């Protein structure tokens, strides 16, 4: 006697596929953001004149604890010029933007050497600030 084989149909649930893809997308977006400096704590100083910041290859942060970070990684001020030079490389003028995010209460002893390092490597400095409301 011949027993007929049962055939199981394996199908991909197409409805769930969209959800999974979307969740994966969000997962990778959050993962990418975890590598930038958005996790660092700092409060911007206020100003009256603000422009839209350009795309930048490098971002330097001085946080509330006066620690310096380059692209989210803690760094000593002495190494900053070397690291910035490596990041900016031979990029032409206009594509050498460095964003500087300094906590408003940080003192000159912490932020001036950073400005000097940016100047040393020929970077275009942009101070990230907040609009001053009267």
């Amino acid at each position: 006697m011949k027993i007929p084989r049962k055939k199981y149909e394996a199908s991909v649930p197409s409805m769930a596929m969209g959800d999974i893809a979307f969740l994966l997308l969000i997962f990778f977006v959050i993962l990418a953001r975890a590598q930038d400096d958005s996790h660092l704590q700092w409060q911007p100083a206020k100003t009256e004149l603000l422009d839209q910041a350009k795309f930048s290859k490098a971002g330097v942060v001085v946080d509330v604890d006066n620690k310096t970070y380059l692209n989210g990684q803690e760094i000593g001020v002495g190494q900053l010029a070397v690291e910035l030079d490596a990041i900016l490389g031979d990029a032409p003028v206009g594509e050498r933007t460095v964003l500087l995010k300094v906590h408003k209460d940080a003192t000159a002893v912490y932020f001036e050497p950073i400005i000097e390092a940016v100047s040393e490597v020929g970077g275009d400095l942009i101070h990230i600030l907040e609009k001053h409301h009267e």
Partner: protein
Amino acid sequence: MSDIAFILIVFFLVCASIQPDKGRSQQIPRSEEKDQKDEQSQNPEVKITRDRVFLNGNIVKSEDFLARIRILLAEKTTEADRVVVVKSREDTTYAFWIKITDYIEQAGGIVTLQLEEEREVKID
């Protein structure tokens, strides 16, 4: 239904957190080392302390500073003449420094920093 609502919340949270940064670009001359023995500079010199500002050695109220530096830079025509040498004391806060350098740039000045070699950089 709750899945969709949850995904929508996450989506809008991620969107809201991706806001483009706004700021102020600053033209800074390339740094160079200069001896103290160099000839006396003719450029305006601004000294910033924690809550005071000095223009060419004279104390100026921060609210009067913009008018004073405007007058000083009005007669300067070349880019080299419009360079303003900024010296800060170690305890000068970034917020105050930004305020004063903002005024200098509004007046058409180009900020250049003068750092002291003997300054020690604190590393925690």
